[in-house]
């Protein structure tokens, strides 16, 4: 992890921090607007207090960044962005596919996709054979544990019902 700094080691302006703080202000405004529909003070007194605090802290952060700069605690994202995005996409698509194709097929597909993404060593014949089989065993093992032992109703898939 490295730390991003401005010229000659001076802290940068923390533009990302400022943008995120602005996003939190916007989020707070949207949440505040939602509280206007609530009639019972018990419903909105606590969230409004929190929203006010969040917006206040965000404004202070923006002010501090504009006046003094910031950026002391930024971590650079080293490594492969396609693999990062691939991991998130595989997990999301797998989760969304589970109600359709069932937990087991989607789980195996997600496992194999992430296995490919996380592989940095050469695909030797041994790895080609053993790693997918291990993955299959893990997914099936957890499936049996949750569905049979723990009685968790895992999705069977509407396509197969």
């Amino acid at each position, binding site marked *: 992890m490295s730390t991003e700094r401005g010229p000659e080691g001076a802290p940068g302006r923390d533009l*990302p*921090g400022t943008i*995120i703080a602005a996003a939190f202000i916007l*989020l*707070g405004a949207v*949440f505040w607007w*939602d509280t206007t529909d*609530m009639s*019972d003070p*018990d*419903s909105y*007194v*606590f*969230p409004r207090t*929190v*929203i006010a605090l*969040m917006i206040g*802290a965000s404004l*202070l*952060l923006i002010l501090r960044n504009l006046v003094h700069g910031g950026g*002391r*605690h*930024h*971590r650079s*994202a*080293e*490594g*492969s962005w396609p*693999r990062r995005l*691939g*991991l*998130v996409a*595989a*997990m*999301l698509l*797998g*989760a*969304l596919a*589970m*109600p359709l194709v069932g*937990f087991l097929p989607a*789980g195996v597909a*997600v*496992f194999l996709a*992430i*296995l490919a*993404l*996380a592989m*940095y*060593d050469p695909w030797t014949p041994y*790895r080609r054979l053993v*790693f997918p089989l*291990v*993955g299959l065993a*893990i997914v099936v093992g*957890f499936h049996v544990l949750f569905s049979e032992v*723990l*009685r*968790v109703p*895992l999705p069977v898939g509407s396509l197969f019902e």
Partner: protein
Amino acid sequence: MLPGIDYFAAALTPFNIALALGGVVAGTIVGSLPGLTATMAVAVLVPLTFAMEPASALILMGAIYTGAIYGGAYSAVLLNTPGTPSAIATTFDGYPMAKRGDGDLAITAACLASVVGGLVGALALLLLAPPLAEVALAFGPVEYFWLAIFGLSLIAALSEGSLLKGLIGGCFGLLLSTIGVAEISSDVRFTFGSRTLLGGIEVVSALIGLYCIPVLIDMVATPDRHLQVAATPRGFRLPEALAAAWRGKFNLLRSSVIGTLVGILPGAGGSIAGLVAYSEARRASKHPERFGKGEIDGVQATEAANNATVGGGFIPTLVLGIPGTPPDAVILGALLVQGVRTGPNLFTEQGSIVYTFIYGLLLATVLMLPAGLVIGRYAYRFIVTVPKALLVPTVAFMTVIGSYAIRNSISDVVVMIVLGVLGWGVGRFGFAVSPIVLGLILGAIAEQGFVQAWTIGAAVGDLPGMFFGRPISLGIVALTLLSLFYPLVRARFMKRPNGAPGEGDYVD
């Protein structure tokens, strides 16, 4: 002489010893899997207990419960993912220890601390149950509110350099906790028409996402090893862990007492106990700047406290019939099925059941030491030796199935992934995820306590007196202020040779 010592032999039957050992092992394994909580572990195995004697059933459930609370430390240390919510604060120092190659030491230290905490909690149950049960009755809504605020004061310590960013993250977590149907007024809040959000953000799924997904995103991006590995095998590192436990004996004792007392409070639970004990350990430490960077005292404090909640939680459960923690609620239900009537007279009228159970719980806690050390060693070896290409998809799959299993909901899986990506994204720019988690965990307790206290205070026309006029509240407020400002006061009085701020000082 210990009360009910006559029943000690009854707890030591081969059947009960086998139940205690089996329960601890099963609980430890279940607790180590993210998404499978202690409550779920106990609930799943309750039907097995219906055919048993009540005391044996209690021993099995107590052993599973205590094992699951300890098991949560494995994934907290090795994967930065609390296996159970009780192990949230274990991640703060356990994972940094593992990253630098001391994961084996962290796990052994966690095991020792869990045993100490478990014993203190069980001894409190044995010796002080009736008077301690009164503590639960002395806590009203306002005390719960201040307890949550005390937990939130940890934001100052967990902000990784920017208190303002930590505060924003904490507020965001609190807002997340308000999504869904309001507990008090039943208004639907912040769902923006989405049926998915009606049930609110599921805390365990959110925890898995916020802590584990960022680790996975970084793991998959580089070929580097997940954890540092020692060149030569170092075994359990028990002497080092014992030496650390001896050095931190006051920390262990204080954290165990905190865990016992918080366990007594209905609804508070191991996560709050761990956070409060961590906060106190950091405040009392000679090196608070080391906390969050791999300080073994932080691991010990959390693990001692969360295991002490097991014995502590049984106190109101057995004496008052009010479950101290969520697993206690499940166990209480099983007891009622067994025909056991909880109440102040339980210790005299059904002493054979209660005392056999308490001695069985003590036995299970002692058995956790060898069982925990052996399982912990294998868990550590598995994580450090398994190829990354298999570790990443295995952990990713466990996060999916674990977050699904809480409420049998794919929506929770999607929320888990989205929150994880969000946590990774904002974490890059100094918005640490721990304050968000604190807000999410403590939000419901804070809001419920705040609104109820506000309503009562307004009704009696004395709001300031409601919030600031009760002795326990004032004590918690004082501790909160001490926790927040003690490091600043001490830093001012400590001489610094070059006048530079110390490592870990806040920049805001």
